[in-house]
């Protein structure tokens, strides 16, 4: 487990940001993945006192605080009602209820873990991240950036009629995904996201219509296979992941077509 020399519960975002400019500082969101590391931390900055644990809804969007737990996302009727149960589907396989009561949205997104179910699923929606200093930017842009020392404050999810589905393959029910695919449809066009390759989730940059037939889907999958990198690890080989990517994108499209 990691070690830490000092523990500070930040009173303001400014205080947390100032402390976080030192390389030896680590932000503490849920801390669930951090505790599996062997890092030597100088100062741990606890973000739990900043009121970032709320799910707020306006006419045009949901605003999710970075400290919202995975369990809050899983059980939110408003979120799951608006996005066809996506938030339950993307969280319910993650370890267990007790873990999901600790782990946070911000922890998963800011770390940009390759295995992150949340990053993969949210990329299928139209989301923006709100950073303390850099302000708002599209999640897709943020997901490609290297880790920095800014603080993820909230994630804004647009309510624009985008209809998502999420499918994963796991070796065991509560294990990390071997491969994850999220898809969404809006105005007859489909967006596909492939995660846990095991690299970070990425949007497939190729057109796919909701009405696509087998040939169109295969053309899309060929583009996906050449665009994205896949690799092997203890959960599955590169070849297996490439095969799964075709299977899961096909299932996602079928689910969207079935409505």
């Amino acid at each position, binding site marked *: 487990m990691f070690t830490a020399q000092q523990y500070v519960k930040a009173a303001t975002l400014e205080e947390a940001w100032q402390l976080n400019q030192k390389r030896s500082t680590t932000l*503490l969101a849920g801390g669930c993945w951090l*505790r599996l590391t062997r890092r030597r931390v100088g100062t741990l900055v606890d973000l739990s006192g900043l009121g970032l644990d709320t799910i707020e809804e306006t006419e045009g969007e949901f605003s999710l605080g970075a400290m919202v737990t995975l369990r809050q996302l899983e059980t939110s009727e408003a979120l799951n009602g608006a996005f066809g149960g996506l938030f339950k589907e993307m969280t319910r396989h993650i370890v267990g209820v007790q873990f999901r009561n600790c782990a946070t949205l911000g922890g998963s997104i800011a770390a940009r873990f390759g295995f992150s179910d949340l990053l993969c699923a949210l990329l299928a929606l139209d989301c923006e991240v709100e950073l303390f200093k850099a302000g708002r930017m599209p999640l897709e842009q943020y997901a490609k950036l290297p880790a920095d020392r800014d603080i993820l404050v909230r994630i804004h999810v647009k309510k624009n009629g985008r209809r998502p589905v999420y499918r994963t393959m796991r070796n065991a029910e509560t294990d990390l995904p071997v491969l994850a695919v999220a898809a969404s449809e809006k105005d007859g066009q489909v967006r596909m996201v492939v995660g846990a390759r095991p690299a970070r989730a990425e949007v497939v940059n190729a057109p796919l219509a909701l009405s696509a037939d087998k040939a169109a889907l295969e053309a899309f999958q060929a583009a996906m296979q050449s665009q994205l990198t896949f690799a092997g690890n203890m959960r599955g080989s590169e070849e297996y992941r490439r095969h799964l990517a075709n299977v899961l994108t096909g299932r996602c499209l079928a689910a969207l077509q079935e409505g």
Partner: protein
Amino acid sequence: MQVTIQLNGRPYTAETAPDTQLLHFLRDAGCKSVKCGCETSGCGLCTVHMDGKPVLSCSVLAGQADGHTVTTLEGLQKEAEEFGGFLADQGGEQCGFCSPGFIMSVLAMGKELGADATDEEIREYLEGNLCRCTGYQSQLRAIRAWLAAKEGKAE
């Protein structure tokens, strides 16, 4: 650093290191029902309630619990004994090592899902608790019987 929690209904304060897990903080406070199992968030042995919700005490730092209410099995003797009776009746505990964490999860589940929980919902809620002895069927029977008894129905 100094950490103060409301532990099993009473205030408890102790000095601890910044990287102390709640698991060890609680065991040092005498709550030996909180078991140290995998320490990788996978087994559920160390489950306690923080502000009424089940959490893995191996995944929470003592500092994160500062100012919060923490309940261990020692603080839920009556409820634990009641459910433990159903567990014993159904052969739902054998070595018993997972029982404290399992019972803490079941008591939280009972409050959260209520008596109408389906078998599927119960299984899903308890996925974070591993048991190497029972195969889970006897535990499921015990939960069903316990929920029925709480509702005043014979199972």
